[in-house]
């Protein structure tokens, strides 16, 4: 089976390609990239005016299965991923039961094979039962297909456990992904500690609670030689610590979410629980510092922290509402609008952040359009304006702060292994 993508702008940062080419897919792999490839027996798609990029990978999503299927399932979450331009997602292990053993990893992979629209890369727990006490069977999970380890939803609070996890994960060359918050400093906080929280009378979640944990993790990564990945980095100071850690040759990587790129704590002003997430939306100085870190190469990945919650669960008092927002179906448009059209970075750098970067952190042979690579492709329309309509999401949940936003740029087609898993080109007139 052959598929020929014609007349698109092909952007492949790894091969330093950015120009008008045709791309031929053969047997699920990239066959050729050249000008004017003859169609032959291939099915031809004219993608003039669109951009063809190596498939985007969201390395931080919550698929909620097993255990919280009323919020999301592997089927609906991966459908949302496909609709949002992602050719793969890494799912966090804070399910019920948590992904802390080979059998749960295998369950997730089996569900993904059977019902998934895109591949799922499971992240296993650092600790048994996510309890933060004893190491989980990381090796067994790695063999079964886990792509990294995290107690996400919670930090690895014990420095001793984090040390052992970083040391042990070296056997499998996989990263330990930490949700960085020092519990005694967060102490029940629900909003960024600053003027907005003070005005609203909400308990503060200070940025320094993230910073001390990021610094601890970097020191431990240096000491152990392990690879640490900072999940959903939200403060300017943390970005600075990662920048310095990288300069010192320490194995530290980090991700930033679209909501921390697009919003500040001002968004919670009306006690809107759709703007309640963990870590919280920060001050404008933090947002500006994250943009700088995205531009200067400090940030490795943009990841959504897609955290679906049922509408009833979010429709409660602010302090009582669960943390988290969905992101799979808005991330690419937010990033094109705010980062690319906003003049922060070029498209090629965005592709690094959404494809090559996450692939590299998770040690996946993805993020490239080299001949022979898996034909995982995200097609973008840079100028297509979209209005965010939560009611039209493929996700089971609609907890987004972006409902009604008009954004310039959108993912229009998602191809996994040469197969079109989502085609949004015809849906709306251009």
């Amino acid at each position, binding site marked *: 089976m052959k598929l020929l993508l014609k007349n698109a702008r092909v952007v492949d940062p790894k091969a330093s390609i950015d120009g008008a080419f045709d791309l031929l897919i053969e047997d699920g792999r990239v066959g050729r990239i050249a000008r004017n490839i003859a169609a032959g027996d291939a099915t031809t798609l004219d993608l003039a005016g669109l951009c063809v990029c190596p498939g985007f990978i969201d390395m931080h999503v919550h698929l909620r299965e097993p255990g919280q299927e009323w919020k999301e399932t592997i089927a609906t979450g991966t459908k949302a991923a496909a609709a949002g331009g992602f050719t793969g997602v890494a799912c966090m292990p804070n399910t019920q039961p948590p992904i802390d053993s080979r059998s749960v990893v295998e369950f997730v992979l089996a569900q993904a094979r059977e019902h998934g629209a895109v591949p799922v890369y499971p992240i296993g727990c650092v600790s048994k039962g996510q309890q933060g006490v004893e190491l989980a069977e990381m090796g067994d999970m790695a063999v079964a297909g886990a792509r990294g380890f995290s107690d996400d939803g919670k930090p690895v609070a014990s420095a001793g456990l984090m040390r052992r996890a970083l040391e042990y994960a070296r056997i499998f060359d996989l990263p330990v992904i930490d949700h960085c918050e020092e519990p005694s400093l967060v102490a029940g906080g629900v909003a960024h*500690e*600053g*003027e*907005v*929280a*003070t*005005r*609203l*009378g*909400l*308990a*503060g979640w*200070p940025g320094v609670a993230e910073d001390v944990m990021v610094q601890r993790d970097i020191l431990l990564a240096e000491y152990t030689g392990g690879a640490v990945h900072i999940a959903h980095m939200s403060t300017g100071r943390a970005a600075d610590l990662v920048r310095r850690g990288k300069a010192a040759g320490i194995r530290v990587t980090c991700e930033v979410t679209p909501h921390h790129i697009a919003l500040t704590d001002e968004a919670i002003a*009306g*006690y809107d629980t759709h703007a309640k997430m963990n870590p919280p939306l920060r001050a404008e100085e933090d947002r500006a510092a994250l943009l700088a870190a995205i531009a200067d190469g400090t940030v490795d990945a943009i990841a959504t922290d897609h955290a679906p919650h049922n509408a*009833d669960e979010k*429709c*409660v*008092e*602010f*302090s*009582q509402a669960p943390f988290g927002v969905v992101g799979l179906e808005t991330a690419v448009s937010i990033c094109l609008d705010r980062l690319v059209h906003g003049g922060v970075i070029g498209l090629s750098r965005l592709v690094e952040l959404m494809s090559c970067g996450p692939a590299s952190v998770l040690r996946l042979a993805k993020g490239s359009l080299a001949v022979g690579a898996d034909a995982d492709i995200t097609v973008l329309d840079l100028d297509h304006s979209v209005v965010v309509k939560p009611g039209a999401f493929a996700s089971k949940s609609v907890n987004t702060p972006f409902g009604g936003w008009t954004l310039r740029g959108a993912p229009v087609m998602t191809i996994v292994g040469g197969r079109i898993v989502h085609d949004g080109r015809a849906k709306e007139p251009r």
Partner: protein
Amino acid sequence: MKLSSPHLLGIEPLSPGEITLILDTAEGFSDLATREIKKVPTLRGKTVVNFFVEPSTRTRSSFELAEKRLSADSLNFSTSTSSLVKGETLLDTLRNLEAMSPDFIVLRHSEAGAPHFLARYGSTSIVNAGDGAHEHPTQALLDAFTIRRRKGRLAGLRVAIVGDILHSRVARSNVHLLTKMGAEVVLCGPPTLLPRGLAGLGARVTHRMDEAVEGADVVMMLRIQRERMKGGFFPTLREYATFYGLDAARLSRAASDAIVMHPGPINRGVEIMGDVADGEASVILEQVRSGVAVRMAVLYLLAGGDREAASQER
């Protein structure tokens, strides 16, 4: 002049003109307590639900009395009797209350933003009777009413607010009100109980009590909760009293005609010494008295009344 919103969610959204309107209207209601018949027919036929999801005696009693004196029918719905303990959500409770067609819901709630939630999802006029650490607008209004009666004005006064600013809705509402009306506010407490970003609210901040009290026209003390000690905000009540308790010596640094206020209930010997609480400068009981008139004014104005009509009615 009328209020621009059907709700009183906080002082922050009010204009100085609206604050003055409420205070002036309350003047009209304040002499009612001394009359033979302590009642006007103003809100006859209106139903007010006092929905208290946090224990409160004085605020609830004050609202209840205000409602009764306005001839409204009131219904008390509090934590122990409400279905919230049975796991019902706030939204469902609101819908159930609204099914009984109240005209007002007066809400006291432990979570900041709870009255905003009711205003957003319901169709009844909401009065915030204290939401978490956010606002307690009728307290600030009755404080302003009391100050205005004693000092004849708010603009240009120096007001020191001392205590647990971090957890205090009274402090926040007072900062908004007093700064809007042109008073100078100094907030004082141990740094552990001073939240970030207070300067953005227009107040000056210090952790030295003598500095806060120096030359003040009004010294407002806040109740310190014993739980805060366990939270690690200060070592002992004894030590707190040493550094932040208002005694006669500290009060002597204030203006010679300074008044002492406290939203109650007071902890004698902790944030305020007994002789000061009972002393000449204390207006603590006057605050309680003002509360009824101010709450009557709020309900009356939210029901759509204006000040001129209020005067005619009496």
